[in-house]
């Protein structure tokens, strides 16, 4: 569109830039931080299961979250494409 209408202003998402990557992580893995190899090792040494019993282990919880977010329609409001996990507008 930029080439056709260079005078048009880009669409601005009503979301602070610092929050955008957090939302993507929230909606893809359910939580803010992923499970790394270092963490698996440390968790085993602490006598815990290497993968915590959160959405990290239960992928269906993430699917539920995505269904709920779609039902509220907030993904449309903030311009987030949940299938490709990227923002439609810069």
């Amino acid at each position: 569109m930029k080439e056709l209408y260079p005078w048009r202003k880009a669409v601005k998402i009503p979301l602070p830039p610092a929050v955008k990557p957090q939302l993507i992580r929230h909606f893809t893995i359910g939580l803010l931080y992923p499970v790394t190899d270092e963490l698996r090792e440390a968790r085993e040494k602490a006598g815990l299961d290497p993968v915590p019993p959160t959405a990290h282990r239960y992928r269906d919880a993430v699917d539920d979250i995505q269904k709920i977010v779609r039902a509220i329609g907030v993904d449309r409001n903030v311009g987030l494409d949940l299938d490709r996990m990227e923002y439609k507008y810069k």
Partner: protein
Amino acid sequence: MADVIVHDPALCTGCRQCMTACSFKKYGTYNYNLSLCKVLEDPRGGFVRVHCHHCTDPMCKAACPAGAVLKDEETGVVTIDQMLCVGCKACTYACPISIPQMGRGLKIMVKCDMCGGDPECIKVCSSKAIKLMSREQADALVSEMAARPFVPATRPIAGANKA
């Protein structure tokens, strides 16, 4: 008369959540420079919050050459009319605590308008350092705060360390 915001420095932790909430409400982003309230460090220790007091007889209104500053007699809220403001900054210089600031976008002054009676900053304050109360209650609380000896908010927590 409607309510005013009162800040209790003894409870404030300086997390600035009110500032992010304010700038998000007004501009849709997190930016301390755009926030209409400010939490600053008290040189004596602790934090002070600078926000509009919606004065009974506002200096900004008296100073405005364009008649853009309006005080709603019913709610007591002081606002700036966007269509009348010429951006001369007279209100900033007249205000004892320089509340009105140059807004982003239009070159006009902006200030706290109490979010239409339901301030966003009150909702997010976890330590309950900012409260919404009537002017009479606020007067009583502020004079009580002024009477108590100055204890910086950075004091050791009471009962923590008896030794």
